[in-house]
């Protein structure tokens, strides 16, 4: 569907280097990366807005590397909606139709899209009188109205209030399933990526750090950057001895599949088990520690536990915290399941 081959784009202070990504038809592909990593540059180069220095962009098997944006059949939705302020909602949505072959079902299709997204009653309003969620729905319908092969979404949820964010997330999933269009979304939020994406790539400073299923990006990072970006807080240098990982602070039993060349291990806070008393029988990788700090993160709490001279971060629900009356300076036992331990070079 989309093949990006050795794509290089140079600016005076930034470069996208040898980007290689394959996106299949109907896939929901996620580009993850921090601010300034080149996500928007990549998306705009696929849309034909930013010229490419070298490499190729193939869409549906056709080389579109130097084709103008209007010839690519690629829609784009920005985080700030980019609605045409001098046009009504309906005029915005119908804008692209005049540049495409007219089809007898256009009117019905647009009507259905507007109905599905709850926009029918807003048809004759101007964008400035609408909420962020409504504007983003219009931007989505406008882009899908011309039946693009690919829809590029540049952080479509970032500018929305949390109350609208969930709605638009569900809407994106629904539109992706019902229209069969290939979606490529840029985000720096891995919760969004997990909810929406099939496959994904992590960009760092213009380089693709890791490509694969979104699940694998989240659970099995392959570089230190990806691990940190994906929210791993427990990352340690290791030496591997058979299935044992020796850090400077403790020794962990890991999955037997661990490779001997691994130089880092990591595990997620939510995979750690916390026990108020020594568990019987004691699981492997269990250590005594002292709670150093508890941070309220809204729906959950993050505990910093000092064990074996290392600081280990664990995630607990508020219910568990209250039930076991955890507080700072309290001694606890932490268990790290071997299957929760990931490794990379």
């Amino acid at each position, binding site marked *: 569907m989309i093949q990006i081959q050795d794509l290089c784009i140079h600016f005076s202070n930034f470069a996208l280097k040898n980007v290689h990504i394959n996106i299949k038809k109907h896939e929901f592909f996620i580009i993850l990366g921090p601010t300034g990593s080149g996500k928007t540059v990549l998306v705009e180069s696929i849309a034909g807005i930013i010229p490419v220095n070298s490499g190729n962009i193939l869409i549906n098997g056709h080389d579109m590397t130097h084709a103008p*944006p209007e010839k690519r059949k690629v829609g*784009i939705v920005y985080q700030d909606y980019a609605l045409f302020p001098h046009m009504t909602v309906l005029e915005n949505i119908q804008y692209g139709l005049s540049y495409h072959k007219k089809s007898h079902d256009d009117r019905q299709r647009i009507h259905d899209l507007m109905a599905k997204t709850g926009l029918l009653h807003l048809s004759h309003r101007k964008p400035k009188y609408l909420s962020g969620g409504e504007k983003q729905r219009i931007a989505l319908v406008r882009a899908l109205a011309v039946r693009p092969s690919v829809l590029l979404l540049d952080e479509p949820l970032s500018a929305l209030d949390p109350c609208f964010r969930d709605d638009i997330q569900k809407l994106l999933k629904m539109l992706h399933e019902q229209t069969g269009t290939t979606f490529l979304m840029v985000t720096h939020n891995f919760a969004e990526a997990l909810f929406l994406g099939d496959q994904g790539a992590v960009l760092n400073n213009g380089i693709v750090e890791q490509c694969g299923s979104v699940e694998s990006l989240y659970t099995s990072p392959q570089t230190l950057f990806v691990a940190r970006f994906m929210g791993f807080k427990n990352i340690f240098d290791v030496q591997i001895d058979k299935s044992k990982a020796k850090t400077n602070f403790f020794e962990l039993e890991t999955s037997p599949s661990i490779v001997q060349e691994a130089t880092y291990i990591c595990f997620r806070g939510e995979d750690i088990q916390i026990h108020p008393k020594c568990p019987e029988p004691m699981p492997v990788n269990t250590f005594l520690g002292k709670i150093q700090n508890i941070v309220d993160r809204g729906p959950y709490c993050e505990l910093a536990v000092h064990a074996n001279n290392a600081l280990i971060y664990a995630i607990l629900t508020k219910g568990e915290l209250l039930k076991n009356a955890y507080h700072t300076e309290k001694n606890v036992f932490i268990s790290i399941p071997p299957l929760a331990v990931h490794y990379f070079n």
Partner: protein
Amino acid sequence: MKRQYDPFLTISIISCSVVSLFIMVPLLQMLFEPSWEIMTESIVDPDIQKAIWLSIYSSGLAAFISFIIGTPFAYLLARKSFLGKQLVEGIIDLPIMIPHPVIGIAILGIVGKHHWLGHFLHSIGVQVMGSVSGIVLVLTFVGMPFYINTVKNGFESIPVRLENVSRSLGASFSSTFFRITLPLAWRSIFVGIILCSARAISEFGAVVVVAYHPMNAPVLIYERFTAFGLKYSQPIAVLLILICLMLFVGLRLLTQKDREL
């Protein structure tokens, strides 16, 4: 709670009053000085009517030429980065900075018969010196920088993402310009036209060098002042001010309506 005294607010109010008086006192003095008889005499004077009309339509033409030539140029400056862009922007600002008789002399230098351009213009029957074409040329020269700078700022204020989305929806570059960029920049274009015409209608220094005749309003005011004194030059100035005021207030009202878009 006692309201705190803010010395800056007082200074601001004083400076506002001083500036307003500085501008308004001489103008009001001039507006109310001519007697009713002299004013009515001036209104029906064909020379004055001709000069005021010439000022209005020559500055209107200068604004129209600026609109046609300056709009694509302003768009280029707003959207593209290129080597020497700052130099080009500096060149555009030159007519604002240099003394206006110098502009007249510079234009005379290239439209005379001894210059190839002047020679060419003469050969196709275009006379610049002492003609309406000359006045329009000079007024375009002095007014265009105001137009280009205003419209450039207007284009810059339109998010480029609107154009990107339009292109992604299938519109070509030119369709995008005419359906998205131009309607959104319309207010800036109006303001640019107002500024360009305002600058052009008040031009004297360059016009008097290139085309003393046919006389436009500023040249006629100067001529009446030197020949007959203040009493006979003031009514023309009053008429010019009143007509310009009506024109520009009208245009401003139009741009206010445009802002509602």
